[in-house]
């Protein structure tokens, strides 16, 4: 896997949103939404970005899409740096990275027919015209398994799952290499969710797509992904391939997340790590390790020194994590 050229490289990405307040609307502080995130995605690979609400997963996705300028860091697409491109030169890059959003209801313009929704990116990049365009749209409808006669309809005539298929067709339309699925299946009910997840992985096999799968649903992630990055308060705390991460997670936060996944077996023995308290505010992130306020294994060093991503000791290659402990105890210390 390491030999394939990287499609997307994200290097020390930071996005701080200024907070406005006061009488004159000056900047009173920053939300440190994403604070130094590094990862890469190879062609045809799925990387999942998991974490609690508000940990900055979606901001990473939107930063890559350049929906807003980033604060610091670099984004490379196929060996070309794209985060600082002026709008004119950015456009050709946009063709290659597309997005599927969470809410199937607000991600489609209610006043556009399905045909126009799917045709828009094709027209934007001048990829097809006239009858060729219609053929292309029909082909995309087939790809996402929607009946062709749905083209003339409006989004409100469809169910959530069908709309998400329209969204996927739109994302595929310009012949993209990378699709950012921003909680793309989170709003769907379980059976529809499974259909969409399967559709995505079928499309990946068929078209060699890379996926950045942003989700908080670990069960879905385990089903679809090649590698997983776990985020906490704007930073990646652990990154590994699927098998390693789900079988031998290292970071206490990852273990807490995994232990929260319901297991459909009442007899299964479980070591649950229950986290107390809320995620601290990204406006005033904790000093040292950002997880120390909720970590059951935290010690003095965690409060002052921020752990850097490093290879997890005794694990497979490519397994990195950010924790001071080389060995995290299995059991939570009782008397704390």
């Amino acid at each position, binding site marked *: 896997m390491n030999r394939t050229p990287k499609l997307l490289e994200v290097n020390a990405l930071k996005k701080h949103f200024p907070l406005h307040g006061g009488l004159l609307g000056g900047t009173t502080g920053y939300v440190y939404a994403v604070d130094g995130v590094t990862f890469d995605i190879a062609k045809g690979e799925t990387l999942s970005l998991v974490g609690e609400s508000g940990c900055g997963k979606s901001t990473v996705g939107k930063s890559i899409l350049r929906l807003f300028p980033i604060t610091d860091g670099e984004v490379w697409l196929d060996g070309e740096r794209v985060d600082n491109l002026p709008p004119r030169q950015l456009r050709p890059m946009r063709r290659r990275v597309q997005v599927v959003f969470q809410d199937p209801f607000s991600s489609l313009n209610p006043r556009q027919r399905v045909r126009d929704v799917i045709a828009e*990116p094709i027209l934007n990049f001048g990829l097809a015209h006239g009858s060729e365009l219609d053929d292309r749209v029909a082909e995309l409808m087939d790809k996402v398994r929607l009946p062709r006669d749905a083209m003339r309809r409006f989004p409100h005539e469809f169910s959530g799952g069908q709309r998400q298929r329209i969204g996927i067709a739109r994302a595929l339309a310009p012949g993209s290499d990378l699709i950012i699925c921003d909680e793309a299946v989170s709003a769907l009910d379980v059976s529809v969710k499974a259909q969409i997840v399967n559709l995505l992985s079928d499309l990946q096999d068929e078209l060699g797509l890379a996926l950045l799968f942003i989700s908080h649903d670990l069960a879905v992630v385990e089903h679809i992904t090649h590698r997983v990055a776990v985020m906490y308060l704007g930073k990646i705390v652990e990154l590994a391939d699927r098998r390693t991460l789900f079988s031998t997670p290292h970071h206490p936060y990852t273990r807490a997340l995994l232990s929260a996944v319901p297991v459909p077996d009442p007899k299964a023995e479980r070591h649950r790590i229950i986290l107390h308290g809320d995620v601290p505010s990204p406006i005033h992130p904790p000093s040292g390790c950002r997880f120390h306020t909720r970590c059951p294994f935290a010690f003095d060093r965690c409060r002052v020194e921020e752990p850097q991503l490093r290879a997890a000791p005794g694990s497979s290659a490519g397994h990195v994590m950010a924790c001071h402990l080389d060995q995290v105890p299995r059991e939570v210390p009782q008397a704390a």
Partner: protein
Amino acid sequence: MSTSEPSVAGIVAAPDLPEVLPPRKERGRVGTVVYRHPTMAFGGLLLALVVAMAIFAPWLGTVDPTALAPARRTRPPPDLIAWLSYWFAGGRHPPAVQYWFGTDMLGRDVYSRVLYGTRVSLIVGFAVAFFSAVVGMVIGLVSGFVRWLDAVIMRIMDGMMSIPSILLAIALMALTRGSVRNVIIAITIAEVPRVSRLVRGVVLSLREQPYVEAAIASGTRTPKIIIKHILPNTLAPLTVQATFICAAAMISEAILSFIGAGTPPIIPSWGNIMAEGRALWQVKPYIVFFPAVFLSITVLAVNLLGDGLRDALDPRLAKRI
């Protein structure tokens, strides 16, 4: 197909069902509108009647609304007895039923004046609604998209909105001569801040919509985003707002005329008729009564239409499978 793969905990791999689209209901368009939005249909019908009255005023048994007849001043409208004696007399035209709404203190036919007054009210209402919608739309779009101008524009609009719109219109009229055109301009200026605020708000919320972000991500340029994604979705609230402005403008026009700051007295507008009849209100109430009733009915019609439009133009509510 990965559907057949063993499922993982938490995922139920349902078989791919055939995608069933709900059948479309086909019904006559007019029938559908009446059936789903009775208020809108009623308001529209009422407004159509008023518009027809304005257009066909010369053929609806009217006389010259400005013709003076000092000999027949303040004739009351015919009462039931007058009508009965008219019918039993075999349809000849005795003077008692000649003036349906009576005559005013200069002997002018109130019926003719009210009918011709419809034209003034409708022209002012529609023109103000149209121009304030267009101007407000442009200002709203600019301040929604050009962030550095937004604060400046909105403070100006706030300033204008802090003056009651009728006072602003009166002040503006005081600067110029009374004419229908100036009335339209004055009321439009007074209504624009509200529209531009509405459009700005809608634009700001639309800009955050995932479908706009998806359009940006798929390379749509800003002008096309405005035309394809923003404008069509502001049109519905704007149309609704325009109908309410139309009603408000007709009332404003009547108020301006009533206090003598609107259309010149020679033009028979409803406000002018009421202003002239005001002095005789206690003895000859009908001079004020008829234009007032017509104003109320017209405003009601426009408001009903606006209410119905608000329901009808929301595509989510319009679904109703």
